């Protein structure tokens, strides 16, 4: 951020991100071009696949739901000035909530929904507890501990799925939830048939609620005030008489709980059973989602939507253009993350020249951006 003429809000909020996405597609287009496909067609296929029709929308929203949970989990802890790389593991362990869902699947989906929300949340929180405690009490760097706990989670779940809760005759997966107890898909809701066969289900409302909750927590509660204060200035927190230990532990547990909710959408809601590695990287994508969303719930929601679109659109692309492999789709996704996330300021100097050509500030801005590169 350089000493700058303030750009019009719509420029920073919409034009710049749009330009970045465009650039990402241009470069991604070159990859497509390299394999002799038409980049423009590829982009239009990708966009159509993500937003062009009901089922596409449904899939986009379904993926966005997972990323919303993981993104919020990362963002919340980041406001406390820490980095929770353990979301993947927290979500994975929370998958065990499936057992509760299976226990209640003869009752009614609402029962399954509520109970699995609770258990998934609790399990995720528990998996975050030890790293949090060690950080707070022993100063053990939370990045190490959460990385380690991802691996430990993988071992634990391998054991559970391989030996304990596995369905004999199947392969390291649990029983499947009985139709009676399955979460309704959006298309089952009158008026929303539009979503076709897509797996997007009632969990999406949970994700939206989670967004509001995090916003409320951070900016409208005394505890959120403490979280942010700790994030900005730990010394001031001690001066204020706020217990950093308590704040760290509780915040991490809330984060773990948010991560755990992935289980409600993905395992309980969509796959209706637990399989090995069901989180499938959503936890790591959540890191990018959180930072691209500037750790603000609205931003997180938007970038979750972007990533959902990339996943669904990418699948459409792989389907419509057989020569575009899913690895190429990964490349395009990476480019989008790079340009919209890490190089979001790429066009600022140019835009500043355009939008404040006549004002003296422009020069300062230029000087500043130069001073950055030395």
């Amino acid at each position: 951020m350089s000493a700058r003429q303030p750009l019009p809000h719509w420029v920073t909020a919409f034009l710049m991100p749009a330009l970045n996405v465009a650039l990402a597609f241009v470069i991604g287009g070159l990859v497509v071009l390299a394999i002799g496909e038409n980049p423009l067609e590829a982009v239009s296929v990708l966009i159509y696949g993500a937003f062009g029709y009901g089922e596409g929308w449904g899939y986009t929203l379904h993926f966005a739901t997972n990323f919303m949970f993981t993104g919020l989990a990362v963002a919340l802890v980041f406001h406390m000035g820490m980095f929770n790389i353990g979301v993947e593991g927290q979500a994975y362990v929370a998958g065990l909530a499936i057992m509760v869902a299976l226990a209640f699947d003869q009752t009614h989906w609402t029962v399954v929904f509520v109970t699995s929300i609770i258990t998934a949340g609790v399990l995720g929180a528990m998996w975050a507890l030890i790293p949090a405690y060690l950080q707070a009490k022993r100063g053990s760097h939370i990045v190490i501990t959460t990385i380690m706990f991802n691996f430990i989670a993988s071992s634990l779940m391998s054991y559970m799925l391989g030996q304990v809760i596995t369905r004999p005759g199947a392969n390291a997966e649990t029983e499947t939830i009985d139709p009676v107890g399955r979460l309704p898909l959006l298309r089952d809701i009158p008026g929303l048939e539009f979503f076709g066969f897509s797996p997007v289900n009632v969990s999406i409302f949970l994700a939206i609620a989670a967004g509001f909750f995090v916003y409320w927590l951070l900016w409208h509660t005394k505890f959120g005030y403490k979280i942010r204060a700790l994030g900005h200035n730990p010394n001031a927190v001690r001066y204020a008489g706020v217990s950093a230990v308590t704040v760290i532990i509780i915040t991490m547990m809330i984060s773990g709980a948010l991560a755990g909710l992935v289980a409600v959408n993905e395992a309980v809601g969509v796959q209706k059973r637990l399989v090995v590695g069901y989180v499938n990287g959503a936890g790591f994508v959540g890191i990018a989602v959180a930072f691209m969303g500037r750790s603000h719930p609205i931003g997180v929601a938007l970038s979750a939507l972007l990533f959902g679109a990339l996943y669904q659109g990418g699948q459409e692309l792989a389907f419509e253009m057989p020569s575009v492999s899913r690895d190429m789709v990964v490349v395009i996704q990476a480019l989008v993350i790079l340009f919209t996330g890490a190089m979001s300021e790429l066009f600022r100097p140019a835009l500043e020249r355009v939008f404040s050509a006549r004002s003296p500030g422009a020069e300062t801005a230029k000087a500043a951006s130069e001073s950055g590169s030395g």
Partner: protein
Amino acid sequence: AEPALIYDAAGKFDKSFNEMAFGGAEMYKEATGNEYSELEIQEDSQREQALRRFASRGASPVVVPGFTWAEPLNVVAQEFPDTHFAIIDAVVEQPNVRSVLFKEQEGSFLVGALAAMKSETGTIGYVTAFDFPLLQAFGCGYIQGARAINPDIEVLYNFIGTDFAAFNDVNTAGEVGISQLERGADVIYAAAGAAGEGALQAAADAGKYGIGVDSNQNYLFPGNMLTSMVKRVDVAVSDAFTDEMNGEWTSGVEVLGLAEEGVGAAMDEYNADLITDEMMTKVNELRDQIIAGEIEVHDYRSDNSCPVS
């Protein structure tokens, strides 16, 4: 109707049965000159979508390798009663679905026997990706075969990792192989997809023997590959394609074991010198006994446990 093949999340080139399925499709393509369509899914939740797309575009049969397809296929098969589907490694009870199962334990039994016969140290090894019933079934059959030859042979049994990433962790696989060799193993059976090559490489580097899996990997390290436990997923796929083409489609469960030559120990020019005649005769003898039901090879998956270890 153009046949279609949808690969599992592990990906088309998993050095394992997805890749073999691909091979099968190619076989069909060569034999008949017909095209087929294919797709790699990226996310588990995309299975139904993929199935539906091919079905709704009139593809038939739609073949899916891997048990993970059972659930979604069960749903989609009912939506498209006129489309034929085939699933490998799992059973889907639908009138328009062909379910192909393999008796990996039987093939593994044979290679286990060979390993025991080849071993001079009385110690052999099994390297696999992670604790996973299918992979345990390989291992369990392997041990049974080895014990059939030498009741007190020691079988080292190692896992590379704890999830699907293990199928790619070729370096750890190599270390696992080395540690087994260091502990006296002189034959190593590697059932770990792409990572398996790491263990086979270790065996080759040490001048010991490796056993490949799924496809015939004998060519990898000629002279150091004792054999491969082939699992003819490719055959299953191309059969499904051709049956449809010739209007000979049959739904229902197909179980391919030694009898059906769905599994077996690969013998070719690469390992000819390593297999002595008496080894050969012994193996054939065992195979006949299994086919005749005189030897009952336990399937780990039936009860998630292995009687021997």
